[in-house]
């Protein structure tokens, strides 16, 4: 009797799943690297579904992993589009993984933030910053500089993502090396700094730790500024965003259309929509700066640190960054993650 009830339940569940699958009218666009808590992708994709009925499911891959997956699936693509931090998208385009597409509104993107051939373009920009949970510092002052982060009072309190997972962290890795005096061939200065920082690092996550920072598990996360503003203003966390004294790096976040995308028509419509004022304003709710000028409301713009702080952010050369990516990531793994 019991097992019959169980079977009935299993049958009902299976039926529900099948009917959902069979209704099949639901259209989807597959976007690799679509992390709901990053740049408000959750809000953006929900708005798109509400407007058009097209679903863009969340995807937990960081840019680097998205790139590797698309390369792997080259013969039989699964993704329609992907979102990357600039250099990684540049690598994907260089490797021939993208098809050219210039979405509507192309002319509104500044020339240095897009590929002239339409292989990638920027949707919004961010800046590398310290996102500090002030209630989790255990009495230590809020760090203001890269030099501060090396102090013993931050032992076990600093986190940055594994750069072989996420493009944001790769931007930090490359930028730091430049800031410390290295270049696309000489990684020593950056790695020397990160080696010293390693003594204070709690962990090198390969998943989003947005919630960990909010809870205080992670006191200092080196990540994109917008994620910190969102924690502070949307989630009311005790978060302070710090632009380090010595300087930092701005980061274009780019997209491209995957070569052989399984849903080409839907994908083009979606990519068009992402450059509309409506979608661009939605990104700005995650405190990423829209690439289309004027899409951000004064209210949201007023919640960023003053422009004088952002004057310390440098632009990085995407081509050089892309060329160094494999070697630099491997060097980081050897010198930092695998050091013993």
């Amino acid at each position, binding site marked *: 009797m019991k097992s019959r009830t169980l079977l009935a339940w299993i049958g009902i569940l299976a039926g529900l799943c099948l009917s959902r699958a069979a209704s099949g009218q639901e259209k989807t666009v597959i976007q690799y690297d679509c992390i709901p808590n990053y740049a408000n992708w959750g809000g953006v994709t929900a708005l798109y579904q509400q407007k058009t009925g097209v679903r863009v499911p969340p995807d937990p*891959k960081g840019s*680097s*992993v998205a790139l*590797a*997956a698309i*390369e*792997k699936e080259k013969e039989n693509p699964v993704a329609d589009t992907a979102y990357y931090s600039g250099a990684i998208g540049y690598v994907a385009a260089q490797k021939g993984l993208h098809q050219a597409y210039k979405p509507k509104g192309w002319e509104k993107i500044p020339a240095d933030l897009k590929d002239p051939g339409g292989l990638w373009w920027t949707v919004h920009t961010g800046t590398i910053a310290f996102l500090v949970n002030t209630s*989790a510092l255990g009495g230590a002052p809020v760090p203001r500089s890269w030099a501060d982060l090396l102090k013993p009072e931050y032992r*076990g*309190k600093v986190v940055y993502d594994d750069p*072989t*997972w996420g493009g944001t962290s790769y931007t930090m890795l490359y930028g730091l090396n430049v800031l410390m005096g290295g270049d696309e061939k000489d990684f020593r200065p950056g790695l020397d700094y990160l080696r010293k920082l390693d003594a204070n*690092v*709690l*962990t*090198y*996550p*390969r*998943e989003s730790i947005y919630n*960990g920072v909010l*809870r*205080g*598990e*992670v*006191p200092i996360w080196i990540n994109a500024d917008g994620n910190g503003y969102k924690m502070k203003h949307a989630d009311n966390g005790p978060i302070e965003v710090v632009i380090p004294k010595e300087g930092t790096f701005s980061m274009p976040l780019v997209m491209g259309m995957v070569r052989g995308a399984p849903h080409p028509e839907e994908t083009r419509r979606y990519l068009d929509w992402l450059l509309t004022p409506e979608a661009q304003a939605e990104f700005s709710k995650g405190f990423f700066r829209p690439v289309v000028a004027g899409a951000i409301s004064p209210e949201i713009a007023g919640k960023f640190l003053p422009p004088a702080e952002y004057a310390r952010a440098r632009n990085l050369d995407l081509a050089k960054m892309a060329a160094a990516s*494999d070697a630099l*990531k*491997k060097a980081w*793994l*050897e010198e930092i*993650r*695998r*050091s*013993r």
Partner: protein
Amino acid sequence: MRPLRAPGRSPGPAGPSAAWLAPAALFLGVAFLVPLATLVATAARGAPGALWLALAGVWARPHTRHALANGLGLSAAVSLAAIALCLLPAELLARRRFPGRGAARLLLSIPLAFSGVIVGFLAIVMLGRVGVVPSLARAVFGRPFGEGLAYALPGLFLAYLFFEIPRAVLALEAAFARMDPEVDAAARTLGAGPVRRFARITLPALRPALVGTFATTFSVSLGSYGAALILSRRFSVLPVEAYQEFTAFGNDAGACAMALWLAAISLVVSAVAAREARPRG
């Protein structure tokens, strides 16, 4: 009167037909042999001898060699600890009827429902920087204990132990249930103390189950990657290295070679355990 027969063994026409093995065999063939062939083919792609080179590479490169050694050590330690911890609870569950027995068994099998990644997050919730344990310790003793332990080796060990406990308990409980209580009772009547009975009767009778349980928990730990992926800061295990090789650099051959090592070691451990577990006589 029916003739006495050993429970569980039913020779002759009464037993189920061997044809019932077919679905399982088919499934195993598709779910194991096909991927295995793909792995071998991928690792061997390119020049002849590439397979051996890739396999040797796992051993030659320090980080994969360390990761493999880490995994072997961790898995063995976790399996032994799980068995040691679970012997008494398993005996209790098998032999005594007490209120809450069902609930206890249910509680012990809960970890089976969690994937490694979830166990990793649980470890952070318990033993992270602001985990339950350090926070409680701070409230009670005025200073934290176990703060950030989740990211170090002890945290990883506890996480693995957490998901191996149900496997050990359930396997050992079944073994205790199969044991003949009369022998133990007879020994007691003859004046043997509890320690002596445990060493001379229980342990020898349990040997096949102990070996089998060790093999299962060891193989599951060796191949597990979710908890280590979330927790390990530096102490790496081979499945995590394979994941990283595959996802971050698209190095199929390298990742496949690591998978082959893991599969081979698990197969050898299981084969040795099966031999050891065979009743002697």
